[in-house]
């Protein structure tokens, strides 16, 4: 890490990279939500002073390299197995803060069983679920959360329910499980949404400290490259098309 300026031409520095993020340019496409979510996670880790006690699990998908950016101990899981790997870590190190960071294909297709059972056991971890309704890393194929009629490289005529079934509302499923303590759906497409997500992450890690059970945050996100839109268009499209099926808000909040 090089010299960090504290003032430029007499101006005060009010915004900087958290020390918990490495000084590495991210590989994400312009306008992608991953970078924002990475940053929010690491901001919360820094603000809570828990860098030494946090262990993350990266998935397979665009965020497979999350460990290049987060300056914490991390493990890279096989596709879909992040929550099982996180279970193994948390059972050995119950006083550490453990999170998995997973996309829709990872968490809601190939890893559905691991996701459901991890939450059903009430593992004291945070699951961050990035839902952009597409497989970004492999080039824009259909995801379990792809909307009906949505064109992807494997649904060139749009997703047809008769052939491909329906978009899977994983967060609604998970919220039914007694092991889930806090389940919420957020986004990062506006400044207000970013602030709300940060609060949800903070709440989740505070609950984890108190061993309350699984906290599950879905982040409805965009994929400008996969959706073949500009970042601005993708955020508008997200609000208009994703939110009707995946509405933001809390699905399960603690009673105590």
């Amino acid at each position, binding site marked *: 890490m090089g010299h960090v300026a504290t003032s430029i031409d007499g101006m005060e520095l009010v915004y900087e990279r958290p020390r918990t993020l490495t000084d590495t340019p991210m590989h994400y496409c312009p306008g992608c939500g991953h970078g924002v979510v990475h940053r929010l996670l690491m901001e919360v880790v820094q603000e809570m002073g828990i*860098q*030494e*006690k*946090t*262990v993350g*699990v*990266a998935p397979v998908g665009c965020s*497979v*390299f999350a*460990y290049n950016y987060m*300056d*914490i*101990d*991390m*493990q*890279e*899981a*096989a596709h879909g*197995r992040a929550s*099982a*790997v*996180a*279970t*193994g*870590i*948390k*059972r*050995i*190190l119950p006083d*550490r803060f453990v999170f998995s960071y997973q996309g829709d294909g990872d968490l809601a297709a190939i890893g559905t*069983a*691991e996701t459901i*059972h991890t939450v059903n056991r009430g593992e004291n971890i945070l699951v961050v679920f990035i839902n952009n309704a597409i497989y970004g890393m492999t080039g824009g194929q259909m995801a379990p959360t792809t909307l009906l009629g949505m064109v992807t490289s494997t649904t060139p005529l749009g997703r047809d329910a008769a052939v491909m079934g329906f978009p899977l509302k994983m967060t609604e499923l998970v919220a039914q499980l007694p092991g889930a303590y806090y389940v919420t759906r957020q986004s990062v497409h506006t400044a207000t949404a970013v602030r709300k997500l940060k609060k949800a992450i903070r709440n989740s890690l505070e609950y984890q400290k108190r061993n309350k059970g699984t906290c599950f945050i879905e982040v409805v996100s965009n994929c400008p490259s996969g959706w073949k839109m500009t970042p601005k268009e993708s955020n508008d499209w997200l609000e208009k098309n994703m939110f009707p099926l995946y509405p933001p808000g809390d699905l399960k909040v603690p009673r105590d």
Partner: protein
Amino acid sequence: MIAHDNEPRLMKGNEALAEAALRAGLQAYFGYPITPQSEVLEYLAAEGAGRGCIVLQAESELAAINMIFGASGAGARVMTSSSSPGISLMQEGLSYMASAQLPCLVVNVNRGGPGLGTIQPAQGDYFQATKGGGHGDYHLIVLAPSTVQEMADMVFEGFRLAESYRNPAMILADGALGQMMEKVILPKQGSLPIVPRPWATTGKPPTRERNIITSLFIQPEKMEQVNLILQEKYRRLQGEAQFEVLETDDAEILLVAYGLSARICQKAIELARVKGIKTGLLRPKTLYPFPSTALAERAETVEAILTVEMNAGQMVEDVKLAVNGRRPVQFFGRMGGMIPSPEEVLNQIEALAQGVALEAERS
């Protein structure tokens, strides 16, 4: 050296193995029920909690091996167990663990296959165990017990090898060894030292760089370097090959067999010697590394070699590679959960001895 109890106990193979694992300082076990190894999970579920071992029944073998991945990466001494179909499901995780260089002990109480197969004992998983099993260039360290005593002792040896070489190790047993009861003198608690794990993901203090456990090396130049490190490790491992010989000094016919097959061969050797056929046995105790050098040396002193397995002929390929044409190598096996009888093996020995005699007459 591992210290042992003074008094023997009568125990089932699966239970002796589970008890030995606790005595070896097992910190976490993740598993899924499957016949004929469920007693391992059951024993640990009853005994583990009170003795400092985390025991969790996973939703699948797939989840179990990935919990093992996470727990090993977090620095713990970990074990899972299953039987053939379940071990197939774990291959993905084992490939990832071999690449990420994570130690663990996996127990395969081999049953007859392929497919769902049968719950009866078999050795059909030899290729899968010794040649990698999952994708990519890697090996497991493979130990092959042939008694309940070794079911217990090889747990200690398995952890030692896995942790000193940072590689998954497997105990390849079979349904009979798991289920049979025998006299066993158990290894003593606490006689297995812990190898330090500075690479574990336990949380990054300011004093070190972050630890990352991964099997992803997207640049081929880096991936090749990782492969070179693994291959160098496997070369070093060759020095750990273990075997046992029985009545080989004057043997004209050498049997090669492991596990349960080796016990059947012992009886067949007795029967053959009554008939005046000088027969001996080489029993590999490690299947990877395979005791090739020892076998090549013995091959020089005998007339012919017979490999006996409970499969269609798998280890016989490694036997042939080691013997390298010096002597004829024959194979006898039963498959699908059938166990060869000593008499069947004796028939093979007699036929081989006759062939050797005819050959001697001709030349």
